[in-house]
């Protein structure tokens, strides 16, 4: 229910400092204002990839020099890790693409006058998808759709749709109604106002929702291994099942680094795509 009230509220709750990991209960939108602080933002944009690169470098050195058992050596083979990463990204981006295709148009439609009434129930459903435990969702869907890539993607989509949908709606709702009126008053059609005024002004909030969703997806894609859809989660399950703590930690570390990398890419896009003049 909180998500529904959030969506109708004017000021989205500021993101918690640790929001980047995306596992908090509130995958809320960051207020656009947080990005006004240009300088700290820019510093973060530079520091974050350097830290990721450093961590990755340290991991590579450790992997090359550490004293590993044969089993660990096979599991942590760089070529394999690359394969898992590829699967992981495929899961993430396939789900993200579907999320965008569904949530962006839906968010736009739900903020148009004739459909505004439907926004409450639909947000409630989206909220349910988010609130349900991700692992439960993945396994539940797999028992229905079969253990496959497809089941994993469907579960991930359900899980990540809310932040994009809600931020799209909040972004559009927070556009000053007088600007819409000014546009219509000048003779712009409703569609022209949507594409040339409302959406450009909503872009910062929408992008931060998309970034939140991507980070959520990278984390949750680790669960895809339970339904046989691969990904870096495989390292974790292998580590747990065969009691190989080094493999387990490596998997967790790589997923975290991937999430941070995606988060950074999202920030860069937000920085570049933010309309000038705001």
């Amino acid at each position: 229910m909180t998500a529904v009230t959030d969506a109708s509220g004017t000021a989205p709750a500021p993101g918690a400092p640790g929001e980047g990991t995306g596992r908090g209960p509130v995958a809320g939108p960051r207020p656009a204002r947080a990005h006004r602080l240009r300088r700290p933002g820019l510093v973060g944009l530079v520091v974050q990839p350097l830290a990721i690169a450093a961590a990755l470098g340290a991991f590579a050195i450790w992997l090359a020099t550490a004293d590993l058992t044969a089993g660990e050596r096979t599991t942590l083979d760089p070529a394999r890790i690359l394969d898992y990463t590829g699967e992981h990204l495929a899961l993430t981006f396939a789900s993200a693409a579907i999320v965008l295709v569904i949530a962006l148009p839906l968010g736009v439609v739900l903020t148009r006058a004739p459909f505004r009434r439907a926004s409450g129930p639909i947000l409630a459903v989206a909220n349910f998808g988010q609130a349900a435990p991700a692992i439960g969702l993945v396994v539940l869907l797999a028992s229905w759709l079969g253990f496959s890539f497809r089941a994993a993607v469907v579960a991930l989509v359900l899980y990540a749709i809310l932040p994009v949908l809600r931020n799209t709606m909040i972004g559009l709702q927070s556009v000053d109604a007088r600007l819409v009126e000014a546009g219509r008053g000048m003779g712009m059609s409703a569609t022209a106002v949507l594409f040339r005024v409302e959406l450009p002004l909503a872009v910062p909030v929408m992008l931060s929702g998309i970034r939140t969703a991507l980070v959520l997806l990278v984390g949750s894609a680790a669960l895809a291994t339970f339904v046989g859809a691969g990904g870096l989660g495989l390292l974790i399950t292998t580590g747990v099942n065969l009691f190989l703590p080094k493999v387990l930690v490596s998997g967790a570390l790589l997923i975290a680094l991937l999430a941070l990398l995606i988060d950074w890419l999202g920030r860069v896009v937000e920085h570049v795509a933010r309309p000038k003049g705001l």
Partner: protein
Amino acid sequence: MSRTDTPTTTDAGTGVSGKSILLDQVTKRYAGQSKPAVDGITLEIPAGKIVMLVGPSGCGKTTTLKMINRLIEPSEGRIVLGDDDVTSIDGDELRRRIGYVIQAGGLFPHLTVAANIAIVPKMLGWSKDRIAARVDELLELVSLDPDTYRDRFPRELSGGQQQRVGVARALAADPPVLLMDEPFGAVDPITRQRLQDELINIQQELQKTIVIVTHDFDEAVKLGDWIVIFSEGAHIVQYDTPERILAEPANEFVENFIGSGAGLKQLTLTRVRDVDLAEAVVAREGEPARDVLARVEAAGHQHAVVVDARDRPVRWPSVRQLGRLETIPAGADPDLPVIGSAATLNDALDTMLVSSAGAALVTGRRDAFIGVITVEVVMDAITRAREAAAAASGDAPVGTNTGPLPVLGAPDDAADGSAA
């Protein structure tokens, strides 16, 4: 402002680029409300004039304005622009032919000043060069330097500048009609006054038909050629010139709305240049004081006005002061009560009261001295304005409601008749 023109509902007048507007028995009902928001209004807005819609908040004046460009679609009635019935043409197409200005300008924050102004010309398919030239021309018109402001974003402008760009944007495609919804409500009083003066100047040049919604009666008096006073349900209580509304308010509602000081408000209707100024003895710096004194006494005056080489008044010595002088000294008196000829009588009276001289020096072009205005002159102007307003024939444009006025007790059968 050319208040002396006879009102015209045609485009015949030279230089008038505006078109007349006619709201013909227009009603707006909202679903779920028993009383209409606007009740059968018939309003004739003459071409090339500024018509002010005033009334208490919630009286339907904004709804009336928005029905002219059909941002709000009327439930009943016709809207005629010039000679065209525009009631059922495409709304977006209609709105491109009508300028629209809202409070604080309503500029799009993600577009530059130039891009904001270019919106309507772009929709109309103008060439790039033509749009660029038009943007510069309009920025000049609203007193903003094109080279400085063209590429700025709205955020980088002051409130007054944003409002100016808002006006420029509304004028972009040279529409015959300009609608303004509380245009100067969001700026400070000094900026507001300046913007009002500028609008008067722009209107003198362009002669558009301008309809302005305001809740500020003083603004209505200052800007309006005609004022429509609304009560609830957009009932027209009085539709007349500012002079006549001030001199002869139609009823108690209007009197209350005008507020106190109707006489003083009339002073804002007359400019210093419109009244007969008193003459004065003019002296130059360095002249022998005795000669000047002789001239002052010959004219029967009490003072002489000293002007500098460019005819600007610098000092205003009395007969007694002149008697004590050998020659007229150089140097200016900083507290001299000086008023420009374009100022209102209100401002002139204020200057006189502050200086306690009972009179003020009037300057014309390039601050050159042209005469003296006294309290008597101002009093005389008030008396004549009242007489003129009372004597003026009722040549006001039509403004009525088909529905009964609430003061009449609103019999039910009449209400049914108007709805039919």
